[in-house]
């Protein structure tokens, strides 16, 4: 087959697959939320509510598309499009199977992009323009606040996100996602998670923040901002924002699995050497299984951890994640430079984690009790002014 035709087919497959997966992930999320909260969840449309996503999609399509009179019309329409476009574009360099040139199917839209990870970060951080423009164009205070929060948050978390991946680039000597998997496909001990556990944690947290998911959904919290940047959006344009968020979740789950958990690799039946009939599909299945596990974990975290306060959010990024990620990069550089055993990285990660924890309890060696205690006499009383 002509390579262009194959690429078009892949794009179609990925688009359809992602969108379909999104709608059913929303179904899974709603069911899971219901189970966690001792409810039943969607159960009216079809058996077990299985047709609910289709009904929801139809509703979004058929609803009246309201554009409020007070909005900047051009930007208002543009911003959901930017959101979806950028998140889908990021998916083009993500291999969703054992990508190879020889196989019948490439399992990736744009094969052998050596920029891989950099491209994804560059494109997916563009998604914040959708949010900012949406909030700005809405001409609404809540929306503007939401988009301001989103911009501050995404820019802050971009740094630990990039830093945490640098370690992997140093270890494998490549930014190409296909190569990153191949480097790890040497056995269970080859997975980057064992050498970069701290980076994995940082990456996961930062990626959650990037995708505006709870506990980092400050840009769209219903309670404070009535939906934030998408307050004024309805019908299909809101659906596009929603879709962008879910696609982002899928992308970061893929990235977590590919970067830290060996991608399609699994010992015994999905290794680099396995070439039995249908091995490609087994690898595809293994990758999907891992990705689904990460997505389910993300959903569990959403219904477990309450939302951060904004100063806590910024504090976490600037005071904890960025220093730790920097230290981790230095650690990886040291190990690579002096050709030490890789397991030193594991030890080093834990040492860094423990150090950070101890620093958090007692930053300057002073007792916390003496630092915090305020004498009762120091209370300023309102009548005190007369004494002066």
């Amino acid at each position, binding site marked *: 087959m002509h390579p262009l035709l194959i690429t078009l087919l892949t794009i179609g497959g990925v688009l359809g697959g992602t969108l379909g997966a999104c709608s059913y992930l929303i179904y899974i999320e709603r069911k*899971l939320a*219901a*189970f*966690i*909260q*001792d*409810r*039943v969840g969607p*159960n009216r449309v079809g058996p077990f509510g299985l047709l609910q996503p289709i009904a929801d999609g139809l509703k979004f399509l058929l609803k009246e598309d309201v554009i409020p009179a007070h909005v900047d019309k051009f930007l208002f329409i543009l911003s959901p499009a930017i959101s979806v476009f950028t998140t889908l574009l990021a998916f083009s360099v993500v291999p969703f199977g054992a990508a190879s040139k020889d196989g019948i199917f490439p399992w990736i839209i744009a094969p052998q992009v050596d920029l891989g990870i950099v491209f994804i970060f560059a494109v997916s951080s563009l998604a914040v323009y959708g949010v900012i423009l949406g909030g700005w164009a809405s001409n609404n205070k809540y929306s503007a606040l939401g988009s301001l929060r989103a911009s501050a948050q995404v820019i802050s978390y971009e740094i630990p996100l990039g830093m945490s991946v640098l370690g992997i680039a140093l270890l494998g000597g490549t930014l190409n996602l296909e190569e990153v998997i191949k480097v790890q496909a040497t056995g269970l001990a080859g997975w980057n998670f064992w050498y970069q556990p701290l980076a994995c944690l940082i990456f996961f947290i930062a990626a959650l923040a990037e995708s505006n998911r709870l506990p980092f959904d400050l840009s769209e919290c219903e309670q404070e901002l009535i939906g934030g940047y998408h307050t004024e959006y309805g019908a299909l344009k809101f659906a596009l924002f929603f879709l962008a968020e879910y696609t982002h979740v899928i992308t970061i789950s893929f990235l977590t699995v590919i970067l830290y958990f060996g991608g399609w690799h699994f010992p015994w039946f999905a290794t680099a050497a396995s070439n039995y009939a249908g091995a490609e599909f087994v690898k595809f299945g293994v990758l999907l299984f891992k990705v689904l596990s990460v997505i389910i974990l993300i959903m*569990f*975290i959403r*219904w*477990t*951890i309450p939302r951060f306060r904004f100063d806590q959010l910024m504090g976490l990024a600037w005071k904890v994640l960025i220093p730790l990620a920097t230290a981790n990069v230095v650690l990886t550089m040291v190990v690579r430079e002096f050709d030490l055993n890789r397991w030193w990285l594991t030890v080093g990660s834990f040492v860094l*984690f423990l150090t*950070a*924890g*101890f620093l*958090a*309890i007692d930053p300057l060696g002073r007792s*916390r*009790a003496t630092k*915090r*205690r*305020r004498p*009762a*006499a120091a*209370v300023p*009383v*309102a*009548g*005190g002014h007369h004494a002066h």
Partner: protein
Amino acid sequence: MPIDSKDVTWVEEPEMGFWESSFLPAIVDGLKTTLKHVIKYEPTTQQYPEEKPELPQNYRGVHRLNRDEKGRVKCVACFLCATACPARCIYITAAPAPKTEEWVDRDKYPAKFDIDELRCIGCGMCEEACPVDAIEMTSLYDLTGMSRAEMLFDREKLLSVYDKTINSGKDPARTTRGRLGPASTMVTPEVIAGSSDEKRVPVQAVPEPGSGGH
């Protein structure tokens, strides 16, 4: 008046230990809790249209006008309910009881008795006020209608609510069934208590006294 400093109690935030400030054990604990709910899945919600709620006996739903032992409307048109009603939703027109054999023991009866169910706030004061236990609230809660006029319940509709609910098992007459309430005859409480053992048979509606024209 400034607050005296000795009246101020300073509350210190609890100190966080190593594991607490790393947040991980707390997150794992939280995940365990949520996971437990998924594994031991016991939904506490009701599937409403299929499963009807179990309402308490003193639920204040749609009104009904009770019938006495002869099947006549129990109401004696004393206007106490209409007076007690804070929403002013009860409209009564009183008339002298017809001079027939059937109504010989009664002086007055409601020629018209309308309750605007849209105005009603469900406070139950009409029920409290009624001296003869004629007006009662049932456990019917799913009251709907297509027009305002439909929700204006007249006497016959209120009596039909009685016929519908009295033997449904959910809405027993809460006070003296059949007989007029304690205000009508100066009976002792023992007699009233005895009267509640009556057999539960729906009493037949008597012919409309006003329909003969008088």
